[in-house]
């Protein structure tokens, strides 16, 4: 089945046509949506269009139940963000939220019903030690005790090892950049920091600039992590729809992508968002991004075949014989993009020779 024909993708693309879904299609939709963590988001879209009452009762209950979980997370994340702000206030570092926490706190459409497990923040590299120390004083502890893993994060990655709050068990990922130090693409964090925007009514809390939010999400998705591929692409769709109505957003997007070294991820993001979710991207923007970032035809053909399978929910109803190899190939590509070959070889050799212990101590 083509990804754009998956029940959950059709539902998100055209929520006003849900009344035409048969019960068997609803059955598939709920299962795919649960696997892709998109049920609460669908609930939000349906609610916004005032269509909840028109849905059949049994599947509607599943959407409502998913929304209960997402709403609880939204409350919890607001609490966490205020705790983090208080903890790092004296360091002088701004608190810049990334991804789910940012969408949620800035009350963006992409935050409604967004499910996430940890809070991602971006701080200036020169302040990261202060921020880490401040968080530790307030109850967050390091999760990676292995010396190699510590080095892996601190030398090569764009974040320090995740911090876990000892009582609330919430997790913070503290970033100083949005892609690893060793990655092929090197967006300059200084540009992101300089353009960060305050969140109304949350003094001291920021998000990235609108274009940068889209570009970060695109880089996250198309440079590596497909675990929540469809959810992340749906984020991009909702961000583009919301920001697209702001004057000047489309005019500056491609240029910003080029200055951040993220034109290629934006290329994939724009094309796949329009393909799956019919995102209204102006044709001129598509021409602009094609002109500067379109891959060669063989690469494009291969990537499309891989993304076609990997962006679909990881559910039996969406799998074909090539789904597993496609996921594996993109996983390998993600590592390839993260590190130069000699480092990657060293890293994989270390992980093979000293496999991580099953139980953490």
């Amino acid at each position: 089945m083509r990804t754009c024909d998956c029940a959950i993708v059709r539902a998100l693309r055209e929520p006003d046509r849900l009344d035409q879904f048969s019960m068997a299609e609803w059955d598939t939709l709920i299962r795919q949506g649960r696997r892709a963590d998109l049920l609460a988001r669908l609930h939000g879209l349906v609610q916004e269009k005032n269509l909840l009452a028109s849905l059949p009762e049994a599947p509607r209950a599943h959407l409502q139940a998913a929304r209960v979980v997402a709403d609880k997370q939204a409350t919890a994340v607001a609490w966490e963000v205020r705790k983090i702000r208080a903890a790092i206030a004296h360091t002088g570092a701004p608190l810049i939220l990334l991804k789910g926490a940012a969408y949620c706190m800035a009350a963006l459409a992409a935050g409604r019903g967004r499910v996430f497990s940890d809070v991602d923040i971006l701080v200036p590299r020169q302040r990261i030690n202060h921020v880490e120390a401040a968080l530790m004083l307030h109850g967050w502890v390091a999760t990676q005790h292995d010396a190699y893993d510590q080095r892996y994060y601190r030398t090569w990655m764009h974040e320090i090892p995740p911090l876990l709050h000892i009582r609330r068990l919430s997790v913070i990922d503290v970033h100083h950049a949005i892609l690893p130090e060793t990655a092929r693409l090197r967006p300059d964090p200084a540009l992101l920091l300089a353009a960060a925007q305050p969140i109304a009514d949350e003094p001291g809390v920021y998000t990235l600039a609108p274009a940068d939010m889209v570009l970060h999400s695109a880089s996250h998705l198309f440079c590596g992590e497909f675990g929540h591929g469809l959810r992340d692409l749906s984020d991009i769709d909702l961000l583009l729809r919301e920001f697209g109505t702001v004057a000047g957003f489309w005019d500056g997007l491609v240029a910003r992508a080029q200055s951040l070294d993220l034109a290629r991820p934006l290329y994939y993001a724009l094309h796949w968002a329009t393909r799956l979710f019919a995102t209204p991207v102006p044709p001129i923007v598509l021409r602009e991004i094609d002109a500067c970032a379109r891959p060669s035809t063989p690469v494009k053909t291969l990537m499309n075949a891989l993304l076609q399978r990997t962006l679909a929910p990881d559910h039996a109803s969406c799998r074909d014989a090539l789904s597993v190899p496609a996921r594996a190939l993109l996983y390998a590509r993600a590592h390839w993009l993260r590190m130069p070959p000699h480092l990657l070889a060293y890293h994989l050799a270390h992980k093979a020779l000293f496999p991580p212990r099953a139980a953490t101590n």
Partner: protein
Amino acid sequence: MNVAHYSLAGLRQEMARDGIYLQTGAFVARVRSPVSQVAEGIHQLYADASILPTHGFADFHVTLAPPATYRRWFKPQVIFRSDGYAPFKPLPIDQAFALFEWGLNWCISSHAHQYLIIHAAAVEKHGFAAILPAPPGSGKSTLAAGLVNRGWRLLSDELTLLSREGMIQPVARPVSLKNQSIEVISQFAPQACIGRIVKDTIKGTVAHMRAPAGSVARVYEQAQPGWVIFPKYQAGVSATLTPMGGAEAFMGLAQNAFNYSLLAQEGFRRLTALMGASASYRFHYSDLEEAASVFDGIAEQRHANM
């Protein structure tokens, strides 16, 4: 069509192939399994439940199958999966039907957050429900099994579902009996249908009792809460109801609710409404017959006051 309509062989075949869409109270579970113990258990203990025509909607898609390892043959095991996801470790194949029941409980308690889900049994008489929350071992299932064999309607045994409107949504699945209570119930209600007794499970010796046909037939009929009663079996005591403070009962319910904190404000609102509609008691008992007459007493009283 009822489960009883099928022959055991027919049911087994259907379950091994496409699976059956089993109506279990508020939920439809599509159950697929080549394991004959599961088919036998469903055939015996869900006899009055409906099997829906296929190709429709199921709330849960569950399979119970042997693992793809040597444990398929050597000391055979069974794995429960909900739409491909296995929340538990494999169990000996002997426990397959109990695993089905536990798995279905897991499905409900981890997904059905449209309800406030309380770890409690619930029974109904004259339109009012008695909610019996209690930690395992307090004798709530035994009491519920006793009451439903003396004219009370079974709403649920493990999971009491409280709707947004403050009503109890029936589930009416088999009642799980453990250890001595299996013998107690077979003596107390010789007509009750009790399934295979399985020893050495994580909960000790377990068996399941079929829900009364009348309770299964009325599974779409929600019930209004009337009482919250914390039961405690205590050898040798006479059956006594002791009024309980509202705050204490509230906390007892909150502690026994799986998703109270997940529902946040709404959870508080629902429990408050529940307390407003119910009288709360502690209940000590040793003899089931005596317990049933005390319960009948409060039900008649409430009925008379209507």
